[in-house]
C-alpha cells in the first residue's frame, strides 16, 4: 500500500464518449421522472396492490450493492489483507456512487418528491425507513471521510485511516441490516416478516457489490490499458464464489424454514411451484442463472482462469440479483394478504387474487438511469481523483509473488 | 433573515396594491385580488398579509393532530368568504375575478401546495362563518364548476387583467 502509485485515469474520446452515453441515460431518466411526477403514478404499472415496482427493484439492488462494494476496502483496512489495500479507494468511491444512484431512483419515485426536505427534517424513529434515511446519509459522509484518509498523505489525516475504515465497515453492516429489515419487519406480509432477511441482505450485498466491483475493475483496466495481474483476479473470483454460495445458503434456510409452517404453504408453493412467472424467475433466473451457473464458471477448470468467463459470471450474478429482488419485492406483493385463513375471498379491492404487475417504460428507464448515475460518478471520480492504481500487476501488488 | 425578507415582500406588495392610481398609468402589473364576501376578515388585513401562512400552518396541525376545529384560522372557513362566487370568464369584470389565493400567489411567485389536496371552493351547504352576511351568499353557479377548470380560467383571467386597478 505504501508503495502503490495511484493516478487519475486519462481523458480522451473514450472518456467523453462514455460520459455522453451515460448522460443520455441520465437525461432519459430525468424525463421519465418529470413525466411520472407531473402526471402521477397512473402512468406507471404500480397500483394499490403492487405499490413498489421496478424502480424499487433497481434502487434496492443499487443500495445493497453499494454497501457490498465497500467490502474490498474493508478487507484491506479492517482485516489488514495487503493485496486488497490498493483497491480500497476505487471500492470506496464505487460504494458512494452506487448508493447515490440507488437513492436517486428511490427519491424520484416518491409520490411527493418535492417533500424531500420534509423527509429529512421529520423523523419517526420507530420506522426503520427513517433510520435508513439517516444511515444512508451517514454512510456517504463516513465513506467520504474514509476516502480522504486514504488520499491525503498528511500524517495528521492518515492516523485516522484505520478508524475511518472500521467505522465505515460497522456502519455499512448496520445499514444493510436496516435495508433487509425494511422487509423483515413487515408482519403483514408472509413473504417478508422474517429475521433472516437482514443477514441475507448482508450476504447479498457482499455478492452483488463484489460482482459490480469486478466488472468495474475489468472495464477500468482494459479501457485505460493499465496492467491487471492474475493474482488480484483470482482472489476476487474465489471470494465471489464464496459469497454466491452464502446467498444460496440463506435463500435455502429462508424457504426451508417457511416450508415447515403450514400457514406459509400457500406463499411457498406460490414462489416455488405454482407462481407461474415468479416460479420460473426464482428457479431459472435466480437459482440457476444467477447462482449455480456463475458458481460453476468460477470454479470449473475450463473457465475459472479466463477473464471473459469471470466477467460473464459476474454479470450473471448481477442479473440473478435483480431477479432475486424482483421475486422478493414484486412476488411478495403479488401474493394476496391472508385476512381470513381457511376462506376463499373475493372483493372489489383485489382480495384473494394474485395481483399482476407489468412495469411501464418510464419506470424501467428511471431504474436504468440510476445505474447510469452511479457509473457516471465512478467515471468522473476516477478521472479527477487518484483512485486507480497505476498497476495491479502481480509483481507490484501480490505480497507472495516470488521475485 | 426570513422574517425580513417576508416583511420586504409584503411591504412591496402592500405598496403596489394601495396605489392603484399610479399603477393605472400602466407600468406596474398588479395582481387582481377579487373582493371577498363579508365586511372584514378574521384578522386585520396587514396582519393577514404578513402572517396568513403561519396561522394556516399552526391551524392545520392543531386540526389534524388534535381535532381542534375552530373556524377562525381554518382554511375551509377562509374559502367561505374568499372563494369565487361566479364562474369566471374573461368578460366578467365584476367583483370576483380569479381565485383569491392563486392570484396573489402567482403574482408573488410563491408556489401553493394547498390546493393539490384541498378543495378550492366551499361546499354548497357549508355553514358560514359568522362574518358572512346572508345577503352576499350565492353559490349555485359554483356548484357545477370544476375546480381545475376554474383555476385555469382564472389564471388566464388574471393575466388579462394585469395592470387593472383593484376594485
Amino acid at each position, binding site marked *: 500500500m505504501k508503495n502503490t502509485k495511484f493516478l487519475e485515469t486519462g481523458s480522451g474520446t473514450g472518456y467523453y464518449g462514455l460520459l455522453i452515453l451515460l448522460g443520455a441515460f441520465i437525461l432519459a431518466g430525468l424525463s421519465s421522472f418529470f413525466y411520472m411526477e407531473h402526471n*402521477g*403514478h*397512473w402512468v406507471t404499472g404500480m*397500483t*394499490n*396492490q403492487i*405499490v413498489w415496482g421496478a424502480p424499487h427493484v433497481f434502487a434496492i439492488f443499487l443500495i445493497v450493492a453499494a454497501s457490498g462494494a465497500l467490502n474490498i476496502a474493508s478487507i484491506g483496512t479492517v482485516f489488514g489483507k495487503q493485496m486488497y489495500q490498493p483497491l480500497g479507494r476505487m471500492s470506496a468511491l464505487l460504494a458512494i456512487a452506487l448508493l447515490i444512484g440507488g437513492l436517486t431512483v428511490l427519491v424520484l419515485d*416518491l*409520490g*411527493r418528491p418535492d*417533500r424531500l426536505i*420534509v423527509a429529512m427534517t*421529520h*423523523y*419517526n424513529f*420507530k*420506522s*426503520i*425507513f427513517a433510520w435508513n434515511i439517516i444511515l444512508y446519509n451517514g454512510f456517504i459522509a463516513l465513506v467520504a471521510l474514509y476516502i480522504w484518509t486514504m488520499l491525503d498523505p498528511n500524517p495528521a489525516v492518515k492516523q485516522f485511516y484505520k478508524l475511518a475504515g472500521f467505522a465505515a465497515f460497522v456502519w455499512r453492516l448496520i445499514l444493510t441490516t436496516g435495508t433487509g429489515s425494511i422487509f423483515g419487519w*413487515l408482519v403483514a406480509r408472509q413473504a417478508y416478516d422474517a429475521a433472516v432477511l437482514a443477514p441475507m441482505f448482508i450476504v447479498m450485498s457482499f455478492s452483488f457489490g463484489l460482482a459490480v466491483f469486478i466488472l468495474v475493475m475489468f472495464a477500468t483496466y482494459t479501457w485505460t490499458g493499465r496492467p491487471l495481474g492474475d493474482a488480484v483476479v483470482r482472489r476476487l473470483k474465489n471470494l465471489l464464489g464464496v459469497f454466491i454460495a452464502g446467498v444460496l445458503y440463506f435463500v435455502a434456510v429462508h424457504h426451508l424454514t417457511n416450508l415447515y409452517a403450514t400457514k406459509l404453504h400457500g406463499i411457498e408453493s406460490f414462489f416455488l411451484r405454482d407462481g407461474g412467472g415468479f416460479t420460473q424467475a426464482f428457479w431459472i433466473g435466480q437459482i440457476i442463472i444467477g447462482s449455480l451457473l456463475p458458481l460453476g464458471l468460477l470454479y470449473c477448470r475450463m473457465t475459472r482462469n479466463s477473464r471473459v468467463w469471470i466477467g460473464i459470471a459476474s454479470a450473471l450474478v448481477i442479473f440473478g440479483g435483480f431477479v432475486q429482488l424482483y421475486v422478493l419485492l414484486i412476488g411478495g*406483493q403479488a401474493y394476496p*394478504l*391472508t*385476512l*381470513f385463513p*381457511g*376462506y376463499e*375471498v*373475493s*372483493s*372489489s*379491492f*383485489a382480495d384473494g387474487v394474485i395481483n399482476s404487475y407489468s412495469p411501464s417504460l418510464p419506470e424501467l428507464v428511471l431504474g436504468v438511469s440510476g445505474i447510469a448515475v452511479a457509473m457516471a460518478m465512478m467515471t468522473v471520480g476516477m478521472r479527477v481523483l487518484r483512485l486507480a492504481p497505476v498497476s495491479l500487476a502481480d509483481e507490484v501488488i501480490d505480497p507472495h509473488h516470488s521475485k | 433573515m426570513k422574517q425580513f425578507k417576508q416583511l420586504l415582500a409584503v411591504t412591496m406588495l402592500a405598496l403596489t396594491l394601495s396605489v392603484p392610481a399610479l399603477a393605472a398609468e400602466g407600468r406596474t402589473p398588479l395582481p387582481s385580488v377579487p373582493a371577498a364576501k363579508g365586511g372584514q376578515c*378574521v*384578522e386585520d388585513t396587514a*396582519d393577514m398579509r404578513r*402572517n396568513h401562512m*403561519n396561522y394556516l400552518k399552526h391551524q392545520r396541525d*392543531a386540526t*389534524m393532530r388534535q*381535532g*381542534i*376545529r*375552530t*373556524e377562525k384560522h381554518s382554511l*375551509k372557513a377562509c374559502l367561505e368568504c374568499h372563494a369565487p362566487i361566479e364562474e369566471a370568464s374573461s368578460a366578467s369584470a365584476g367583483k370576483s375575478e380569479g381565485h383569491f389565493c392563486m392570484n396573489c400567489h402567482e403574482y408573488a411567485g410563491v408556489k401553493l401546495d394547498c390546493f*393539490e*389536496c*384541498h*378543495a378550492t*371552493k*366551499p*361546499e354548497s*351547504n357549508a*355553514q358560514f*362563518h359568522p*362574518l358572512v352576511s346572508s345577503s352576499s351568499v350565492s353559490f349555485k353557479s359554483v356548484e357545477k364548476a*370544476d*375546480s*381545475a377548470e376554474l383555476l385555469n380560467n382564472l389564471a388566464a383571467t388574471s393575466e388579462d387583467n394585469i395592470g387593472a386597478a383593484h376594485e
Partner: protein
Amino acid sequence: MQPMNEQMQPDRARREFFSRSAAAAGVMLAPGVVLYGVAQAKPADEPVTSKVRWGMLVDTSKCNTDCNACVDACNAEHGLGNEKHSREDQRSQYIRKVELKHKATGMTHSLPVMCQHCETPPCVDVCPTGASFKRADGIVLVDRHICIGCRYCMMACPYKARSFVHEELTDQKPHTPRGKGCVESCTMCVHRIDEGREPACVEACAANGSRAIIFGDLNDPDSEISQQLKNYASSEIRADLGLNTGVRYQGL
C-alpha cells in the same frame, strides 16, 4: 400569533342564529340516524383526548352480499371515484365489501372491511415522517401535509386498507382533502365524529335497515357498542397480530 383582537368578535346574535339554523338543518337532513351511544361532540376548540376510543362493530349476519350501501355512502361522502385516468386497480377505496366462503365447510359471509384503526398500528410504526399517526381518540389518520408518498405504510398494513392517489385530483370535498402523491385511507369520518355525527357507512347501513355496523365509544362501558362486545362473541380480523383493532366483527 397575534392575540385575538376584541373588535373583531362577530356579532353574537348572528352567530347564534346561524348555529341554530345549522342544527335544525342537520336534524332535518339526516334521515334515519340513530344517535344512541354516540358521545356528544366535543367543543371545537378543545383537543381530543384518549378518554374516548372510537370503534365500530360489524354484525356479519346482518350484512347482505348484494348490499353496497356502506361503500357507496363512503365514496359519496369523501368524493372518491373522481379519478379520471387511473386504472381500476389504481383507484382509491376506503371501504370494500368482502365475500367469504369457507373452503372446508362452505359457510359464506359478507362483510365490509376498512381501516381497522388498530391500537398499535403497523402503518404508524413504519411511516418515516410520522405522517401516518393515531389521534388520541384512537382514529388512525394520514397527515397529508407531511406524507411523502413512499407507500411503505401500504406495504405494512395487514388489512390492505390504504390507497395511493395516482393522479391529480380536482373537485375534492372540503372536508376530505385528498391529492396526488399521498396515501389515504378510511378516516372513520373524523370530520363527522368531531361534529358529533356518525361515520357515513354506519349512517347508510342504518338508513338501509340492516344496521349491520354500529359506532360508538369503546371506553364507555354503557355505550351500545361496549355492551354488545361484552355480551356477544366478537373477533378481530387477523387477531393473531395482536393489534387490538377498533373495528370488530360478530358472526365470523
